[in-house]
């Protein structure tokens, strides 16, 4: 399963719910305002580091760049472009957007 989260971890509970309901081995892709969760110093950093032990965590580079956050990414988060987004969707058997 590819989980897709597009909301800031401060503003909404989407990331929290996603991490609660994602099985080990699943992938998480952060897009749009969701990419803030991939940045150092963010409230979600501990939860993301914990999740990294059991899941692959990705963040969409164009969304990080737009927000001036490309230089603040937590080590271990893999950056992808839309190309990589498409690959992730195709590689995993199914996907879920946490709207």
């Amino acid at each position, binding site marked *: 399963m590819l989980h897709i989260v597009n909301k800031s971890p401060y503003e909404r509970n*989407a990331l929290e*719910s996603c991490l609660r*309901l*994602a*099985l080990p081995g699943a992938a998480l892709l952060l897009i749009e305002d969701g990419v803030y969760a991939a940045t150092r110093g963010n409230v979600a950093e501990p939860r993301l580091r914990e999740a990294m032990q059991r899941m692959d965590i990705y963040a969409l580079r164009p969304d990080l760049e737009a927000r001036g956050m490309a230089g603040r990414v937590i080590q271990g988060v893999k950056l992808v472009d839309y190309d990589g987004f498409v690959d992730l969707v195709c590689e995993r058997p*199914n996907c*879920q*957007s*946490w*709207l």
Partner: protein
Amino acid sequence: MSEFENDAGGESAGRIKKFMFVNRKAPYGTIYALEGLEVVLIAAAFDQDVSLAFVDDGVYQLAKGQQTKALEIKNFSPAYRALEGYDVEKLYAERESLEARGLAAEDLIVPVEVLSSTELAELMAVQDVVISS
């Protein structure tokens, strides 16, 4: 369901996929719960393997005693009771979401299977199509 006659039975006839609708939003504040139900009914009309998960504020959609008269908005909560008539019988609510809101199964207008986060996660993981709103 006038769309039923036009759409069902096309090239998709006979193929059955697992559709899960994940309801995470409260009713009335936004339209997602109401319009989400319409997709559920159409998926059922296509004879798909449909399930509904109520997570986070989505469990509020099922709260008993909704009275919308003063708001002059239609009370659509009875529609959940009609789901059975469309053979939509797999309704799940996450225990953690219910408890965090002080709700129990008997506070809900329809019977649901209450699942732990892990149980629900395992169900989600085997779906073909997951539509959350």
